[in-house]
């Protein structure tokens, strides 16, 4: 038998490695951060290098929700519904100051951070953030996914939380 005919690995490591390079983002673009999102996802900065460039325009096919821009209270039910429609496993990236914390809007209209309604995995502050910051955030998220546990059945994870 020649060398490299087989390799051994842990199941979680293998699945994590696969998942971290196949992030399908759903860009929920509401505001001016969208310009920066276009920049970061197109040729010059190119999130495709990280396996996270193919935007799916339905939440049912995506696993990374990118909340790009200001979320108002009127819009909150929409983003909640989009999040609920995504299949597990799913991650959320808050893109920009407004999605992170409401940014400079402190008034009747604006949700003070999208994490008030849905759980956020990684925050990218900045108004708008530099593309390098977004790439850094994606890489950090990938590291986390790679080191995460990946239960074959989702209820394993829930049992863990209960204990």
């Amino acid at each position, binding site marked *: 038998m020649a060398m490299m005919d087989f390799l051994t690995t842990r199941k979680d490591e293998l699945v994590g490695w696969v998942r971290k390079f196949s992030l399908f983002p759903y860009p929920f673009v509401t505001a001016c951060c969208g310009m920066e999102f276009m920049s970061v996802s197109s040729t010059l900065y190119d999130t495709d290098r990280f396996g996270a460039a193919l935007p799916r325009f339905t939440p049912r096919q995506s696993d990374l929700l990118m909340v790009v821009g200001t979320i108002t*209270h*009127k819009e*909150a*039910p929409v983003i*909640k519904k989009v999040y609920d429609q995504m299949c597990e496993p799913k991650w959320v990236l808050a893109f920009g100051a407004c999605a992170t914390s409401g940014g400079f809007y*402190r*008034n*009747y*209209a604006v*949700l*003070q951070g999208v*994490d*008030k*309604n*849905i*759980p956020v995995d990684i925050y990218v502050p900045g108004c708008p953030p530099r593309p390098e910051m977004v790439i850094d955030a994606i890489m950090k998220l990938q590291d986390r996914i790679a080191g995460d546990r990946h239960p074959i059945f989702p209820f394993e994870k829930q049992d863990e939380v209960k204990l």
Partner: protein
Amino acid sequence: MAYESIKTELNGLFENAGDSFGMLVLELAAENLLPLVTRLKEEFGFALFLDVTAVDYPERQPRFEVVYHFYAVKHNKRLRLRTRVPEADPTVATLTRLYGSANFMEREVHEMYGIKFAGNKDLRPILLYEGFVGHPLRKDYPIDREQPLVEYRTSG
């Protein structure tokens, strides 16, 4: 058409005439609004309704000021109207019969300031949502009061 002719011919319909960076500003009582605007449109060519908004002066009596802007395309002249309404009955006549475009702007002023436009049958909110209490652009609306539609997460 000069501003002077407006001032002389419409004398009596307004209380005060002023100037703002070369634009004529008329202050008038709320009940004179519809007759004045009708004549401005029909006799002086102010065919374009630019804007209606309101200003909240909490310390003044009457409290609200409703501000209109008009534009005469053929004369390249603008005009501003200012009228005061009290807090107890903040009502002015609607201009939707003269300018269809007034509808959306009156709806916005209605939801943001609570100004009532008598005769406008369609004052549903545009930017605010169903169930929103209060008028957010009034000065006594607390700046950090939120009325969320989705319940906030507590954990997980």
